[in-house]
């Protein structure tokens, strides 16, 4: 109880947990509400339309619903969704029959039935048995939007993970404050303290799982309705087609939350074990970061049925992203026996919890952590090798080492690598249904206008003439294409303007802003420590008394800051750049910009040259927040204050900007990195560019002066 009071009475920590919870809710709210410009009333109105539609057809059979809609008519989004649900409900029994028939067929196939003790044979039998329990009789049409929202709220997993990490950090307070020996010397400082912390971790995991998953569900239920459908079998939801558990939707939610809570507890135990077992603070957190990164890379890169799939299946992220345990039917090969992935994870969780609990108690009670143990010897060996490398480094290398390995920057950069695994360039489609065929034709002939282009159009027309189907839409698309090709100026290419609008159009603002927010957050986290390390360690006077401790050191640190910036630019913006190229197609990279109406003013510059220029400009523009961060770092005496100020000046405005408060664009340099880029907006963003460039330059000059000035 006292330990809980100690942990949660720390205002900073409490604020952090509340901040994460609120941020998670804001992200959820805006992910649902952004298409309504953040207006909750519009969201509610739209949700009500679907609720009424579901209500209207609730008691109808899927066949009746399908027959009520004309195949040729244009559907609204809600009608389309309802139809998809009806199709799913009507085909579910067919799906079950298929699974059973396939199992029977495979059993009779000689290559599978030859060895009845093989994993493959047993897997076929088990799959058939699991699906045999499923029935299509009870599944019903319902409004499951809220549950779907909860399952689609992927950001909650990361907020949840962050909160668990911060709690484990709280367990390490005595190590940070050099009180470990004092605490261990008290009667309750070992076993009882460890037990108390395990209880706190378990309760905290359950409460945070509720906050991060149940609260968004409740909000969505209030907006979308569908509470009465929670008693329906879980297979009533399209996403749960492969689920073989005989439970209701409500039962699924309870299980889902329990697994999330267990996942939080388990991840917390693993991290706690790592950081308490390894003596040196820096090494322990670096190891924990490497472990989490490694697990994530294994989870995201190993294919489900590869030889190494066990590393993906038994993985902390399999626990964390628990929805896949229900939405995907997967058996894992355990000594030739097929075991349901979920069942395996539950057993692994129980075994791990027991083992880690025992190890933690032993580590905290029996191990004399102040002594020189095996981990310490291994650490020394690593240090010896590291020292050999570092002795050859110049100041730049040593400053880089300091910032990456002796501060939180290393963790921020690892987070950057994980967070930028997939960088998207668009999330909107300018294309309408009418554009679909037109775009398909364009993609066939993208490139310079040649005789082949005209031949293709002629042949396509001929094909339509001989087709025995309704080709009205095709003819219209071809006519449009022909008109477009004829209007192309000499030297210009056939290009897909709609695809370009998906990336740089007025409505395509989310992804550029999201990517810029990522860059801002990683910059803030990475650079806040660079100029505060000396002050944090009270070493400023010592450093300033050396020959190179003033101007030279400042510019060396600045060079390191630029290198970190280059890395973040590479991860975020080069990722975006690659996504843009993939989206537009490599074949149009040599097209002159004038081929695109959007970029007409850039004339004969090739698209690839324009993109190079655009992304290099983004790199240059990133220097503005870097300079501000350097200035803030120089002004504030501690890392925490610097991080807070950088967050307030750089990251928070970027976040508000992401939430479609476009008017704030003037108050954040991040807008220039996103959809207010001067190359895209031309003179309309010129004033912002000038003002922020002056602020950036002034911040750097002031920081340099401040660094070498004498203190009064």
């Amino acid at each position, binding site marked *: 109880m006292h330990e809980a009071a100690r942990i949660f009475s720390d205002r900073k920590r409490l604020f952090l947990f509340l901040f994460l919870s609120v941020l998670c809710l804001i992200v959820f709210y805006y992910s649902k509400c952004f298409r309504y410009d953040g207006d909750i009333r519009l969201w509610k109105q739209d949700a009500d339309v679907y609720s009424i539609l579901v209500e209207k057809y609730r008691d109808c059979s899927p066949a009746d619903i399908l027959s009520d809609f004309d195949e040729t008519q244009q559907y609204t989004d809600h009608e389309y969704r309802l139809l998809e649900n009806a199709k799913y409900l009507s085909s579910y029994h067919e799906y079950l029959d298929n699974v059973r028939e396939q199992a029977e067929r495979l059993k009779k196939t000689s290559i599978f039935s030859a060895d009845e003790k093989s994993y493959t044979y047993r897997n076929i039998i088990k799959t058939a048995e699991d699906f045999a329990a499923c029935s299509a009789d009870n599944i019903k049409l319902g409004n499951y939007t809220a549950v779907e929202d909860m399952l689609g709220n992927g950001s909650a997993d990361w907020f949840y993970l962050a909160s668990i990490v911060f709690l484990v950090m709280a367990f390490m307070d005595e190590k940070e404050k050099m009180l470990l020996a004092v605490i261990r010397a008290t009667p309750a400082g070992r076993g009882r303290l460890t037990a108390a912390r395990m209880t706190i971790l378990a309760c905290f995991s359950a409460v945070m799982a509720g906050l991060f998953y149940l609260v968004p569900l409740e909000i969505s239920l209030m907006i979308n309705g569908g509470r009465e459908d929670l008693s329906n079998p879980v297979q009533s939801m399209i996403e749960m087609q492969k689920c073989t558990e005989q439970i209701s939707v409500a039962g699924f939610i309870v299980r889902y939350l329990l697994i999330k809570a267990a996942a939080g507890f388990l991840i917390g135990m693993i991290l706690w074990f790592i950081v308490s077992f390894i003596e040196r603070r820096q090494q322990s957190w670096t190891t924990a970061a490497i472990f989490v990164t490694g697990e994530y890379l294994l989870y995201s890169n190993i294919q489900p049925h590869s030889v190494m799939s066990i590393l993906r299946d038994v993985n902390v992220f399999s626990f964390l992203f628990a929805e896949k345990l229900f939405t995907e039917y997967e058996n894992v090969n355990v000594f030739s026996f097929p075991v349901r992935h979920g069942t395996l994870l539950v057993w692994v969780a129980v075994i791990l919890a027991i083992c880690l609990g025992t190890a933690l108690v032993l580590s905290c009670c029996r191990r004399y952590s102040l002594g020189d143990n095996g981990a310490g010897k291994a650490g020394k060996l690593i240090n010896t090798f*590291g*020292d050999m490398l570092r002795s050859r*480094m110049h100041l730049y290398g040593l400053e880089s080492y300091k910032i990456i390995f002796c501060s939180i920057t290393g963790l921020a950069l690892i987070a950057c690598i994980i967070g930028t695994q997939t960088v998207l360039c668009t999330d909107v489609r300018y294309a309408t249904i009418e554009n679909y065929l037109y775009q398909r034709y364009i993609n066939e002939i993208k490139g310079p206008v040649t005789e082949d282009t005209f031949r293709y159009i002629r042949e396509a027309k001929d094909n339509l003439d001989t087709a025995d189907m309704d080709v009205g839409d095709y003819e219209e698309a071809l006519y449009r294409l022909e008109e477009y090709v004829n209007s192309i100026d000499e030297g210009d290419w056939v290009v897909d303007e709609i695809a370009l609008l998906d990336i740089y159009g007025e409505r395509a603002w989310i992804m550029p802003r999201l990517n810029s927010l990522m860059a801002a957050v990683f910059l803030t986290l990475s650079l806040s420590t660079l100029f505060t390390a000396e002050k944090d360690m009270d*070493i400023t006077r*010592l450093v300033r*008394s*050396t*020959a190179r401790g003033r101007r030279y050191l400042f510019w060396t640190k600045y060079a390191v800051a630029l290198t970190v910036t280059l890395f973040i630019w590479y991860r975020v913006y080069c990722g975006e750049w690659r996504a843009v190229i993939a989206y537009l197609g490599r074949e149009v990279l040599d097209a002159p910009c004038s081929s695109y109406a959007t970029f007409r003013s850039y004339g004969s510059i090739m698209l690839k040259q324009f993109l190079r220029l655009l992304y290099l400009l983004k790199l240059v523009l990133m220097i503005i927040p870097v300079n501000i961060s350097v200035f803030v770092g120089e002004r504030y005496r501690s890392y925490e204050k610097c991080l807070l100020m950088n967050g307030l000046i750089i990251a928070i405005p970027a976040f508000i900007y992401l939430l479609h408060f476009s008017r704030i664009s003037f108050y954040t340099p991040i807008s220039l990195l996103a959809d207010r880029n001067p190359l895209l907006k031309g003179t309309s963003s010129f004033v912002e560019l000038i003002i922020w460039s002056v602020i950036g330059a002034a911040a750097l000059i002031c920081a340099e002066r401040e660094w070498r000035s004498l203190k*009064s």
Partner: protein
Amino acid sequence: MMNLITDNLRRDGGDITYDGTEIRELGAGYRKLLGYMTQEHALFEGMTAESFLVYMCRLKDIPGKIIKDEVSRVLQQVNLEDERHNTIDSFSGGMKQRMLLAQALLGDPKILILDEPTSGLDPKERVRFRNNLKEISKDRIVLLATHIVSDLEAVADEILLLRKGRLLRSGTPEELIESLPEDTVPVLHSLSLEDVYLYYLGEDDDA
């Protein structure tokens, strides 16, 4: 005073010269001659002892070729050779104190400024330090600020007694002891520098 000599504090007035030249004019050239040991345990704790000293060598503009030898020399001098690959956060207070002294000795500085160098050292290390200091002070200026008077008796050629930034008295240890009134009652069995300290500065916390 330490901050003024190391040019870490803005001066209201006056000059500080080295060989007749104002230290601000000498700039980095002057700081190359300095070896400064602060009173605080100011070290990058995540670094190993060797890495920290290499880092300080780079800051002191010591040529790369001699850095390795220089690091080994100072580590030997402060008796931390066996700890060179351990991170500083695992060091005790006394070891950190020796690390600070080691970095001050890097580059064989002509001016050595030591602020409370022996606080936190055990008696064995203190004796070792005094002997080292005697050795190295032969051909350089050593400015030692300390409240441990016995250190001074062992190593100081000349002592300056300062009160509130003003010079109160100066001289060799013997001269200062002789300057005491005849009726001074010694703290120990005979008059020593501790009696001088108590007589001149005893009631002053800022001494």
